[in-house]
């Protein structure tokens, strides 16, 4: 009997190939006769292209082709944007710059050569004559009518304006005893998947078939869009996401390079490969966040929140990528956090700037929401001299289920028990004791801070009505004639471990061993259309599709089992079907058969009227041989489901950070980090922990280290990992994790999702802890990233003044 695995921390089945260096990321796929592509990118943020001379580059031995924007302007369609907002301005985003360049990194030309060293050499031989223009760098100043205009035909840099929310915000703020206002910055962040992007294209002219291997989170959506860009039939484009080395939203996109590589292979008739360098990745892979916001929060003297307004300038960059304009709308949806707030309003001014596009980076708009509401709660607590925990508790809704908590942002949260997660975290931290220790330490002049964040996130994206290109997910489950189980999922993972967690779901449902299962994903020629892995949707939507396909498959298997066992009904457990007709009908159950030679006192076989049972794997063989199946039954044993969720899910939790700041250096040292997360049912707690750890560290990076910096001329000054500080092992404390389990009513397994929890819940806790530590200096808020230098300056200025 196969042991049940759901809920157990089993080792991943994908790991053996990864730990031995035997996996195949795009650059590991070698095709004979492959050419190599390198892009020439703009060194200016904003400039007119006067001329491009490629003649010298073309003459370099080994160069096969050089393409410029003019060469392909009529051949390749624009880079797509899947989001639509009323009256939004959509720039014509061509794959290569034609008349102007709009950001440092904007692709201007592509060289294709016999090897990558030659292609790289040829790039230096292309002469571009630029007329530099003033750059627009700040998202707020971009909206100023006096600002230079990036896309002249729009007359301004405003991409769109949007007001969202419900309730009478003016009245709510007027009715408040206090209104707290503050400016809040969310710096641009670089996702930095460790595997940069990469594309390998191979065109077979005879078959007229293009195959693209690309490092993407959305193979099917990418195939549809690239086929449209290239003007080839979608079913003549096979797109394969092989091993994908992380994404964090940066590969939830369709990029110019994907179409350019396909085009180059079609032109040259040879495979063409491009592998992004890290510098290119910093310049030309999407960034995240990028908001300058102003909050106003109204409260009663007792701490009751009356209303919350967020006016925000959202940085789009110069072009839209796939979801660029949609990201701030997600911020608007989650402004209520886990609190009862009767009136909420968000006013977005989305602006174009001479920078790379922003788009979905882990959390995608929701970390911004959680951060502003959590900062707002802390500011209110400071204003009212209330404990921040008490203030939060006061504004929590009572525990709820059944999609019943309605917010003034128009959402119905699925289920929640915010008190339980908070209580557990406070207990783990011994919160009262921590506060006492803090008082003591402060009296000794030490700078200790405690930060608490109670967060909720919107996940399992999502109902199709709320998504640009379908929010459902697909799965096929097939039992092969030999009894091996194949699962095809449309939710193509890139490190989340779904090859294991989906196999766990299926193994339990079918009563087979995890090792008898294979999960296949990422190849559009093999897997039915699917959406992809992002928005914490892999298990909650993709896993649910697998679960439902399993039920369908078992239903058919059950019918065939009944036919073969010659009974009306069957029961299924531990991978085997038994006749259940007698039981079901309440008819007399025959005496159990006691095997000869066995004492009656020993274990007896289950009641089994005909003495027969049949395994689901035997059923699979019978279904494929099809010699004895019911006349109205199709041969084979496979089932496909397209699962459409009726609502999002809303995971939540409490994070507590305890820090000490070294007054000599301004360094932030973590004393403790506690997180209690509720992601509903956990399929594999080991993977859940992994997701939370990783998310917290990305939060920690955002809070203390990371920032994409463009200077006043729009020059990217954080262009390598030398200048952009990704947290390393020594920056990170030991995390103390626990969880509560509140099932989601949105899907049958009760899964909520966990991919983004850490990156949403942790940032406010860390910032709050540092602010709390600095409160003796009168500090109530500090903008991220809170670098030692900022703290040192505050500490020393005050010390000097004292």
């Amino acid at each position, binding site marked *: 009997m196969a042991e049940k695995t759901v809920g157990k921390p089993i080792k991943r089945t994908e790991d053996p190939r990864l730990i031995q*260096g*035997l996996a195949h*990321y795009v650059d590991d796929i070698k095709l004979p006769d492959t050419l190599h592509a390198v892009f020439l990118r703009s060194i200016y943020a904003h400039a007119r292209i006067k001329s491009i001379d490629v003649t010298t580059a073309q003459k370099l031995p080994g160069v096969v082709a050089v393409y410029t924007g003019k060469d392909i302007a009529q051949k390749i369609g624009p880079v797509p944007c899947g989001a639509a907002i009323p009256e939004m301005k959509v720039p014509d985003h061509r794959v290569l710059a034609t008349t102007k360049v709009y950001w440092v990194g904007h692709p201007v030309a592509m060289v294709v050569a016999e090897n990558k*060293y030659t292609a790289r050499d040829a790039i230096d031989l292309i002469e571009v004559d630029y007329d530099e223009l003033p750059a627009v760098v700040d998202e707020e100043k971009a909206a100023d009518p006096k600002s230079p205009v990036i896309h002249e035909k729009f007359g301004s840099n405003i991409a769109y304006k949007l007001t969202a929310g419900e309730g009478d915000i003016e009245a709510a703020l007027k009715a408040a005893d206090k209104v707290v206002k503050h400016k809040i910055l969310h710096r641009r962040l670089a996702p930095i998947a*460790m595997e940069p992007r990469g594309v390998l294209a191979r065109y077979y002219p005879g078959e007229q078939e293009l195959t693209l291997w690309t490092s993407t989170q959305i193979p099917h959506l990418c195939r549809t869009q690239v086929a449209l860009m290239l003007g080839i039939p979608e079913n003549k484009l096979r797109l394969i996401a092989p091993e994908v080395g992380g994404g964090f939203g940066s590969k939830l996109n369709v990029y110019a390079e994907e179409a350019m590589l396909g085009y180059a292979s079609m032109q040259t008739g040879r495979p063409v490969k491009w592998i992004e360098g890290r510098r290119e990745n910093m310049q030309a892979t999407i960034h995240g966040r990028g908001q300058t916001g102003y909050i106003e929060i109204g409260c009663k003297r007792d701490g009751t929140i009356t209303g919350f307004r967020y006016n925000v300038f959202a940085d789009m960059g110069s072009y839209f990528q796939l979801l660029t304009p949609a990201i701030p709308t997600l911020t608007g949806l989650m402004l209520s956090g886990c609190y009862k707030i009767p009136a909420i309003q968000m006013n977005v001014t989305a602006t174009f700037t001479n920078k790379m596009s922003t788009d979905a980076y882990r959390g995608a708009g929701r970390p911004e929401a959680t951060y502003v509401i959590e900062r707002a709660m802390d500011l209110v607590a400071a204003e009212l001299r209330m404990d921040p925990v008490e203030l939060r508790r006061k504004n929590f809704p009572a525990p709820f289920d059944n999609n019943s908590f309605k917010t003034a942002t128009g959402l119905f949260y699925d289920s929640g028990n915010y008190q339980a997660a908070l209580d557990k975290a406070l207990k783990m931290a011994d919160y009262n004791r921590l506060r006492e220790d803090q008082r003591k330490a402060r009296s000794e002049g030490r700078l200790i801070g405690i930060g608490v964040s109670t967060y909720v996130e919107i996940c399992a994206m999502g109902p199709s009505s709320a998504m640009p290109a379908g929010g459902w997910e697909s799965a096929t489950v097939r039992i092969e004639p030999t009894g091996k189980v194949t699962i095809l999922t449309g939710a193509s993972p890139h490190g989340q471990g779904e090859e294991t967690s989906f196999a766990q779901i299926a193994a339990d449902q079918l009563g087979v061993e995890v090792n008898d299962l294979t999960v296949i994903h990422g190849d559009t020629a093999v897997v039915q259309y699917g959406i992809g892995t992002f928005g914490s949707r892999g298990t909650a939507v993709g896993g649910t599709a697998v679960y439902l396909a399993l039920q369908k498959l078992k239903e058919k298997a059950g019918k065939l089992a009944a036919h073969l066992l010659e009974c009306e009904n069957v029961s299924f457990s531990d991978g085997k079907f038994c006749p259940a007709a007698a039981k079901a009908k309440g008819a007399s159950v025959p005496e159990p058969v006691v095997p000869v030679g066995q004492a009656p006192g020993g274990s007896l076989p289950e009641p089994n009227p005909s003495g027969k049972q049949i395994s689901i794997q035997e059923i699979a063989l019978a279904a494929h041989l099809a010699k004895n199946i019911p006349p109205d039954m199709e041969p084979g044993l496979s089932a496909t489901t397209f699962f459409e969720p009726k609502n999002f899910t809303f995971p939540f939790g409490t994070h507590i950070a305890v820090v000490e700041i070294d007054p000599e250096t301004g360094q932030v040292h973590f004393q403790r980090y506690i997180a209690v997360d509720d992601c509903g049912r956990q399929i594999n707690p080991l993977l859940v922990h*992994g997701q939370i750890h990783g998310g917290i560290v990305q939060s920690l990076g955002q809070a203390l280290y990371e920032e994409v910096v463009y200077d006043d001329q729009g020059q990217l000054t954080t262009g390598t990992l030398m200048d952009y500080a990704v947290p390393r092992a020594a920056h990170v404390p030991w995390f103390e994790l626990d969880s509560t389990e509140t099932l989601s009513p949105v899907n049958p397994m009760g899964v909520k999702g966990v991919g983004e929890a850490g990156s949403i819940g942790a940032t406010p806790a860390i910032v709050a802890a540092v602010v709390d530590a600095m409160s003796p200096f009168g500090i109530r808020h500090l903008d991220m990233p809170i670098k030692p230098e900022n703290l040192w300056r505050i500490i020393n200025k005050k010390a000097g003044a004292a």
Partner: protein
Amino acid sequence: MAKINITVNGTTHQSDVEPRMLLVHYLRDVLGLTGTHVGCETSLCGACTVMVDGQAVKSCTMLAAQADGSTVTTIEGLAASGTLHPVQQAFWEHHGLQCGYCTPGMIMATAQILQRNPDPSEEEIRHGLEGNICRCTGYQHIVQAVRCAAKKMQTKSVASGR
């Protein structure tokens, strides 16, 4: 072209390479050992870490020509005779990897840490891994894996009488 003589994972190769060819490109593109990854081009991320004459080296900032006469071990050469190296086993057991891209470098760096210090503390492990970036795991499971590997290797060396 430069002539090099180099032993990789126990096999000796003689090659003519461009003098500017990076060691990592030699390993990946000439020898087809694609387990060693390139993550940053500036020797900051450590994904390309291999052993050159017993020292952990970032192969994206070493020329193949510089490795002439050297003995190189890559991730593919770590699992001797088909058995996983204790560090590989420990990374698997403790979920020390997610997307797997940094993993070969992390494992090679870990092997070096444990060579130098068979029983490192948490702080020593975190310090030892400073040259390697992982964007997925948050490092905690990696730290646990390194500790576990240290135990496995100590037990092994006790068992073998060393």
